[in-house]
């Protein structure tokens, strides 16, 4: 219990108290407090347990760089957010925050014994453990690591909040509203362009919020900005990433700072901002120093202590010692002293310190130890003293304190600069990387551009200490529990590049992305390797700058809006008739129509029998459709498809097979020639856009001499398949102007006329093997025509059938489904479709590839039928096939099942499969090993029903 509220000062509102809980205990603070400042003011020093060793940890920083004090905030069911940084959580009435990674409580953590066994958790622990016996990993190590490690608990219930999203455009976007950012925004605004100024904190001001001398200026500047019509100021808005061409994504937190019952509207808003110029004014983050015990609660950044005192009116301790290698530590010490915080001593490894700083310290009666280093900090759950030694050598002397302030110099916040692929240069004076070159219209101002006066200092990765490195408990990455000695060990084990050292030690890989650890890690590696920092490299910063909720990134794109759901005009009818749906590409399709208590198998069996014995109607509207028009239409299709098209007479249809230039099947469909210069193409449901794109590609870039126009008509036509021996009788009373007699309207023909008074393109085609028609009508009339056909069908025992029945019926006939029976490596011959390849055609897309050596080589996988020895055994689609079930594991797999169903018509199961050299195995028995035993099946031709095709004639 050592922090306390100062008698005055800070930007908090001392007249407005806020009550909240931390780990279930009632706490309070003032309006304007952060969770960290309110708790510090009440003497709290312990805020969390560390990731790996469960060491007690306190506050390190006063901003988003905080690695230790991670808390979970509970705003009700589904509104639990882990891993928030206590200094960045504003308090409100009713806030419930809990500490993390402790078991069972923060004060008594049983797992802290880990600490005692820390020798078992060296660098590369994870990598090394992975190499131990597999069984030990699964049964012992993984459960233990899962229990010990992990930052916070991920939510288990649905997030009830909604999230807004917007686009914005401006001439100038300024990221960071400290003094440099505000100045840049005012300057840009004067030129009249649109200006955005965004800042992650609760209010704008940045570093000026911790400097009362600047508050008058800040108020004036804020008022000026607010009065400008062309300026948008967004606080609580974090720029999470810079993307190409000055596209910055920022998340605005709209309600998390409000009491739960006051929060209305979306929780966050994601801004996608395209800016002419981006000005980064993101400041700099102070570096900790690396010494024994630097993670004991009470050891924090000097700048953080200054912010807590001057912005929040909180002293972080009663007797503080500053460990500085940089002038800024002295300046902060003097500012703290002036604010009424007791600074007992300033320790500085440097002998030469500016006279005015020493004089200032003497005037404040602060003891000065130049040339000294803190060699260790002592204490368990709170620091109680330090040992300091001249040049870090020898036993040294002890000093009592209840807080240690580290001033290790400053690291400019170049994260977004790096996202933009801006290069960095090492700056010796800063001991840090500064922005160098960029191809974006992007610049850094203020501290993040190296243009700020923090004074002078050393950059030193590790303070000198008498203890050898391998015995030291000096931490570099607090969040991932990486010690200086881990980096030493990584180097000793042969790692040289900082990218490798980072991954092996996990330094900088926690949720804070190493905001306080990267530079120290680099300096230590540089020291151990005896090579300059610039030769060791720099790790890459990636978005997001700070952890970001998935909710904001998702925005409105969830549930029904996650992706478009395409419905046909008959979809509502199907819903009314109890359809069970499945999604095919983005389409929702009726899969089957159960009646009463039927399950899928029963419904499909009934639908199949009805189609084979009477008639069925099927909504085929999702088929892709392309209208191909122009004098060269036939020539174009002749070049695209494997089949000949020029000889196709108007009024006739043809099955078209489309290959890629690589010779593999990519689509198929029946197409009709309506006139010499007009074709009605169909594609697979999922392939429509892909096929149109491919055809446009050839037309625009290879054969631009052809006079052809392609138009997607998928959604212009509703398609009703009427299939079964009674199909003609069902449509006959409805059709006008078309002679339906078999002589006048043969299989694979198309006629134009009317149905129910609506224009139709009537196809006589069959994907079932039965007499069949596909009625194309303009989509707006689809429902009307469907209902008329349905009503007529009732006189003939018609059923409505879905995609599952369609699949079974076509499989009985051995018709392939591209993408199910083919997988992008199947040629026409492999699929048994060699007949569809025009042998006399000089060229078509993919033809040359069909002569490639590996395509004509024997042993390719070929489509065959499979009949299981047990007629009731239905194979699993995707199951692997072997020739010899008794061979040792791993077995030689010779193919896989592509389609498999129970056929009600045949009273047994049927399957299709791709099998190596399949057509040479006719009559052979193959084996399909499954978890519950091996299933045997005989290889047959992929044609199970009406091989002669007599049923097509009704």
């Amino acid at each position, binding site marked *: 219990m050592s922090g306390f509220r100062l008698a005055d000062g800070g930007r908090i509102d001392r007249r407005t108290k806020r009550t909240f809980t931390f780990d279930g205990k009632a706490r309070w603070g003032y309006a304007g407090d952060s969770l960290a400042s309110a708790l510090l003011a009440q003497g709290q020093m312990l805020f969390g347990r560390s990731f790996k060793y469960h060491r007690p940890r306190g506050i390190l920083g006063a901003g988003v760089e905080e690695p230790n004090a991670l808390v979970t905030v509970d705003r009700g069911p589904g509104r639990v957010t882990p891993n928030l940084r206590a200094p960045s959580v504003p308090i409100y009435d009713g806030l419930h925050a809990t500490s993390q990674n402790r078991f069972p409580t923060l004060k008594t953590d049983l797992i802290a014994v880990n600490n005692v066994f820390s020798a078992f958790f060296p660098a590369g622990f994870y990598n090394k453990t992975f190499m131990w016996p597999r069984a030990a990993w699964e049964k012992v190590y993984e459960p233990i690591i899962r229990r010990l490690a992990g930052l916070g608990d991920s939510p288990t219930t649905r997030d009830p909040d909604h999230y807004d999203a917007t686009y914005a455009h401006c001439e100038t976007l300024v990221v960071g509203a400290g003094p440099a950012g505000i100045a840049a925004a005012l300057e840009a605004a004067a030129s009249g362009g649109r200006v955005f100024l965004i800042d992650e904190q609760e209010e704008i001001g940045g570093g000026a919020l911790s400097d009362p001398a600047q508050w008058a200026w800040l108020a004036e500047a804020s008022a000026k900005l607010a009065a400008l019509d062309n300026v948008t100021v967004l606080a609580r808005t974090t720029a999470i990433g810079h993307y*190409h061409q000055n596209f910055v994504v920022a998340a605005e937190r709209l309600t998390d700072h409000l009491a739960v019952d006051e929060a209305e509207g979306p929780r966050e808003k994601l801004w996608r901002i395209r800016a002419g110029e981006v000005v980064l004014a993101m400041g700099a983050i102070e570096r900790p120093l690396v010494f024994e015990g630097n993670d004991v609660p009470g050891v924090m950044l000097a700048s953080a202590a200054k912010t807590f005192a001057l912005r929040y009116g909180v002293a972080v301790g009663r007797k503080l010692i500053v460990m500085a290698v940089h002038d800024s530590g002295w300046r902060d010490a003097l500012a703290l002293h002036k604010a009424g915080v007791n600074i007992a001593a300033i320790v500085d490894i440097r002998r030469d310190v500016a006279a005015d700083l020493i004089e200032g310290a003497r005037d404040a009666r602060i003891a000065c130890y130049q040339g000294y280093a803190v060699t260790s900090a002592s204490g368990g759950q709170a620091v109680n003293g330090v040992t300091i030694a001249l040049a870090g050598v020898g036993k040294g002397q002890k000093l009592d304190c209840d807080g240690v302030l580290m001033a290790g110099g400053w690291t400019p916040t170049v994260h977004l600069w790096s996202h933009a*692929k801006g290069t960095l240069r090492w700056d010796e004076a800063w001991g840090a990387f500064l922005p160098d070159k960029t191809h974006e219209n992007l610049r850094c101002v203020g501290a993040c551009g190296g243009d700020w006066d923090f004074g002078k200092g050393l950059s030193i990765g590790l303070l000198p200490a008498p203890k050898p490195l391998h015995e030291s408990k000096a931490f570099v990455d607090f969040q991932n529990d990486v010690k200086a000695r881990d980096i030493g060990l990584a180097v000793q084990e042969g790692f040289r590049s900082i990218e490798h050292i980072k991954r092996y030690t996990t330094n900088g890989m926690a949720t804070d992305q190493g905001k306080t650890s990267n530079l120290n890690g680099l300096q230590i590696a540089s020291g151990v390797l005896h090579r300059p920092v610039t030769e060791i490299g720099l790790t890459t910063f990636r978005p997001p700058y700070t952890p970001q909720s998935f909710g904001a990134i998702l925005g409105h794109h969830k549930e029904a809006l996650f992706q478009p759901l395409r419905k046909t005009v008959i979809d509502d009818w199907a819903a009314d008739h109890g359809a069970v749906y499945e999604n095919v590409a983005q389409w929702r399709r009726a899969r089957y129509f159960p009646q009463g208590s039927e399950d899928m198998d029963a419904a499909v069996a009934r639908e199949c029998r009805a189609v084979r014995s009477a008639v069925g109607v099927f909504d085929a509207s999702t088929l892709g459709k392309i209208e191909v028009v122009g004098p060269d239409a036939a020539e174009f299709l002749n070049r695209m498809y494997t089949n000949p098209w020029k000889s196709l007479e108007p009024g006739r249809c043809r099955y078209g097979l489309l290959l890629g230039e690589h010779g593999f099947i990519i689509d198929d469909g029946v197409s009709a020639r309506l006139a010499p210069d007009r074709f009605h193409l169909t594609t697979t449901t999922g392939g429509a856009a892909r096929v149109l794109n491919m055809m446009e590609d050839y037309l625009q870039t*290879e054969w631009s001499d052809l006079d052809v126009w392609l138009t997607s008509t998928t959604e212009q036509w509703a398609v009703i398949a009427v299939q079964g021996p009674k199909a003609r009788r069902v449509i006959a009373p409805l059709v006008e102007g078309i002679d339906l007699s078999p002589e006048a309207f043969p299989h694979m023909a198309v006629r134009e006329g009317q149905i129910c008074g609506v224009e139709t393109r009537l196809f006589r085609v069959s994907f079932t093997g039965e007499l069949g028609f596909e009625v194309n009508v303009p989509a707006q009339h689809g429902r009307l025509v469907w209902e008329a056909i349905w009503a007529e069908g009732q006189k003939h025992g018609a059923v409505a059938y879905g995609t599952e029945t369609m699949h079974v019926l076509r499989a009985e006939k051995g018709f392939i489904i591209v993408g199910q029976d083919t997988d992008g490596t199947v040629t026409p011959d492999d699929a048994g479709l060699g007949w569809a390849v025009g042998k006399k055609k000089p060229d078509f897309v993919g033809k040359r590839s069909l002569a490639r050596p590996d395509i004509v080589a024997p042993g390719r996988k070929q489509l065959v039928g499979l009949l299981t020895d047990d007629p009731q055994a239905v194979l699993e689609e995707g199951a692997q096939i072997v020739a010899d079930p008794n061979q040792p594991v791993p077995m030689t797999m010779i193919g896989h099942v592509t389609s498999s169903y129970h056929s009600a018509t045949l009273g047994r199961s049927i399957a299709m499969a791709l099998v190596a050299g399949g057509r040479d195995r006719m009559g052979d028995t193959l084996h399909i090993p499954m978890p519950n035993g091996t299933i045997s099946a005989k290889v047959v031709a992929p044609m199970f029903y009406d091989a002669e095709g007599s049923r097509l004639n009704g």
Partner: protein
Amino acid sequence: MLLIHCPYCDEARPEVEFAYGGEAHIARPVDPSTYSDEQWEEFLYIRSNPRGRHHERWRHTHGCGRFFNAVRDTVSDVFETTYKAGEARK
């Protein structure tokens, strides 16, 4: 998100309107049957994959629908230029 200038629309539009179309200036042979297996392999599969200037195809799929060519730096992702299909390599 990239901004891409469509030479047909003469507008810089966001990347989501476009689809990438692979390396540019790889013409389909007039008569593929005259190609040896090695030549055909080269046409089908072998791409330059440079570090730096890359000639590539894009289609303004959700705009005018036209295919066009672009020169993009594969390191920085900066577009040097875009030009209409059929124009000479830049």
